[in-house]
């Protein structure tokens, strides 16, 4: 790792200046980090198997091989379609996804043990489903990189994206509960055995829409307004986008009973508004809206009250409603600073340990030290996204990258905050770690878009400096016209080739 950022540069991509080095693409460092991530994930898998006293089965080898194939294909796709993309985004994603797979496999083993003890039929293996979803996610990842050559074309489909996003978001709420309801939240479209959560995809489409919309209209939102208490208040009629965001999130909350997504949508749109207009008043007004909405929701909806009560004191109703979060807290406490070691804990005691509560599973077995390292990997992913937003030159790309990165960040905060009892629990998945097909596939699409934007930000300017076609001595000297009638009437004393 002695030469970070060094990489095979494409010939012909030099900056035109003689002696200037070709820009590093970062593909070599990406490959090295991917290999490193694969080593870590393989090590984790071996540790789990050893601690669970399992033998390496051929089926498991296939899962491992499939993971490596996915990494290789993703890397090749980036090399092919986005050669200047950020070198840190893909390895971070690969490490998170791999650790998620290992932890899901580890919980599979625990479930199988328990079923064998109780004499029940063996439960299906979740890790196979997850690796299938990873493959689907990879397909979408490559498709996005391949079809979206330039992120700016997305701006043209802003309203289409917004419309499709709204339809996807509303669809589960309108469908009958038999198709759309799982565990009390109407988020799903289930056909046959497979189910997807369209809200995950709606999130990305709505970010595209809001970025495109705000780039068009942001002057409206940031110009007119009155000054009050030292800040510019927007005009009442310009509050429309904020009201739409608020209505959207409240609608999700009411119809689909999904606290997490509603929080996510509102937060993303608020941050995009702030990024587009640079006005603090939007944030304050938005937070005011949020507080009002939260209070009303608390008064009206029973499930919100339950969540808040469980948050305030999970042990008050330990056996029932508080069981999940109390078990998660016990798990985190058991893990302590260093963790029990992979495969040596009992993370399976938490309900939904592989999806919503994978954070506590990881915390039990890796401890605070491991959790902190995973958080830093997330942080690297998010900061690279935001850095692309800073570096890219068009404002649509800036807003889009900001929105996408912030969506990941807010989702991580909401999930980890919920699991660790910092904020009320909301049913969201951790990006790339949790078991859950839609979330994984949608997040792969999100990362593909981030890579596309970072490619645009890091690629050399295509406008080449004017080639020195004419030798410099013959370049157009600024000639002063000799006046036709005589030197006395000329405004400038110097004749052509003047001898003052």
């Amino acid at each position: 790792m002695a030469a970070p950022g060094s990489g095979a540069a494409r010939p012909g991509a030099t900056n035109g200046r003689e002696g200037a080095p070709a820009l590093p693409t970062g593909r070599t460092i990406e490959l090295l980090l991917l290999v490193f991530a694969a080593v870590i994930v393989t090590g984790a898998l071996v540790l789990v198997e050893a601690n669970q006293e399992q033998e390496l089965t051929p089926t498991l080898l296939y899962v491992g091989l499939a993971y490596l194939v996915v990494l290789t294909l993703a890397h090749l796709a980036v090399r092919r379609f986005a050669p200047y993309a950020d070198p840190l985004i893909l390895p971070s994603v690969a490490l998170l996804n791999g650790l998620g797979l290992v932890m899901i496999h580890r919980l599979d083993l625990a479930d199988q043990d328990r079923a064998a003890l109780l004499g029940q039929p063996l439960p299906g293996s979740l890790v196979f489903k997850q690796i299938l979803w990873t493959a689907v996610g990879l397909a979408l990842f490559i498709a996005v990189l391949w079809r979206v050559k330039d992120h700016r074309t997305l701006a043209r489909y802003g309203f289409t994206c917004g419309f499709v996003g709204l339809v996807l978001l509303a669809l589960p709420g309108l469908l009958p509960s038999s198709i759309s309801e799982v565990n009390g939240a109407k988020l799903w479209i289930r056909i046959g055995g497979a189910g997807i959560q369209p809200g995950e995809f709606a999130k990305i489409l709505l970010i595209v829409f809001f970025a495109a919309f705000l780039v068009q209209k942001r002057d409206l939102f940031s110009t007119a307004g009155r000054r009050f208490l030292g800040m510019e208040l927007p005009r009442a009629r310009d509050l429309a986008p904020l009201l739409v965001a608020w209505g959207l999130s409240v609608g999700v909350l009411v119809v689909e009973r999904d606290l997490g997504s509603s929080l996510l949508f509102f937060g993303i749109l608020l941050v995009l508004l702030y990024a587009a207009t640079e006005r603090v008043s939007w944030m304050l007004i938005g937070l005011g809206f949020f507080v009002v909405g939260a209070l009303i929701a608390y008064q009206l909806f029973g499930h919100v009250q339950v969540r808040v009560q469980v948050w305030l004191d999970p042990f008050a109703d330990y056996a029932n409603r508080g069981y999940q979060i109390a078990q998660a807290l016990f798990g985190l406490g058991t893990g302590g600073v260093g963790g029990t070691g992979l495969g040596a804990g009992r993370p399976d005691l938490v309900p939904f340990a592989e999806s919503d509560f994978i954070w506590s599973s990881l915390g039990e077995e890796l401890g605070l030290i491991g959790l902190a390292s995973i958080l830093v990997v997330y942080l690297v992913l998010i900061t690279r996204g935001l850095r692309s937003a800073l570096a890219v030159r068009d404002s649509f790309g800036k807003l889009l990258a900001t929105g996408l990165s912030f969506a990941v960040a807010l989702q991580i905060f909401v999930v980890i905050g919920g699991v660790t009892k910092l904020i009320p629990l909301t049913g969201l998945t951790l990006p790339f770690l949790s078991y859950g097909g839609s979330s994984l596939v949608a997040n792969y699409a999100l990362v593909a878009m981030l890579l596309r934007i970072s490619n645009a930000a890091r690629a050399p300017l295509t406008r080449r400096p004017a080639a020195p076609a004419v030798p410099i001595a013959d370049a157009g000297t600024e000639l002063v016209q000799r006046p036709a009638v005589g030197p006395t009437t000329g405004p400038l004393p110097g004749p052509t080739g003047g001898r003052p």
Partner: protein
Amino acid sequence: MPELVLQLTRAGFLALLWLFVLVALRVVRSDLYAASGLRAIMPGGGRVASRAGRSRTARQLLVTQGPLAGTRITLDSRPILVGRADDSTLKLDDDYASTRHARISQQGEDWYVEDLGSTNGTYLDRAKVTAPTRVPLGVPVRIGKTVIELRS
């Protein structure tokens, strides 16, 4: 698995995770030194080269094109007057140059070119010189049909 091996692998795996983080942060750090998204490449290229270039000072003035091509003037601290006048340091025989055309003088480590109100102007690379402008090494200064460069 024996307890000792369990403890060692446990610590080893956490160390591996943090090693990944450190390598990633190292890449972030190296990226901080690269130009922030704008990537203006210094002439001569790269951070190392520009640092080396700063330590080099101009020692010679070389006429690269024009009637006097090939002429070298060794620089000392005195300013160089360029023009058609007889008392110029570099006396040009160039129809497009003025009598007192430009002055190249040293300030600190750097050399600056200054137009002395010439008719046809002085050009640093392709930009017209309107105020005293620093002349980097190897960048052509055009005066009429004559092109001069500073060399170390």
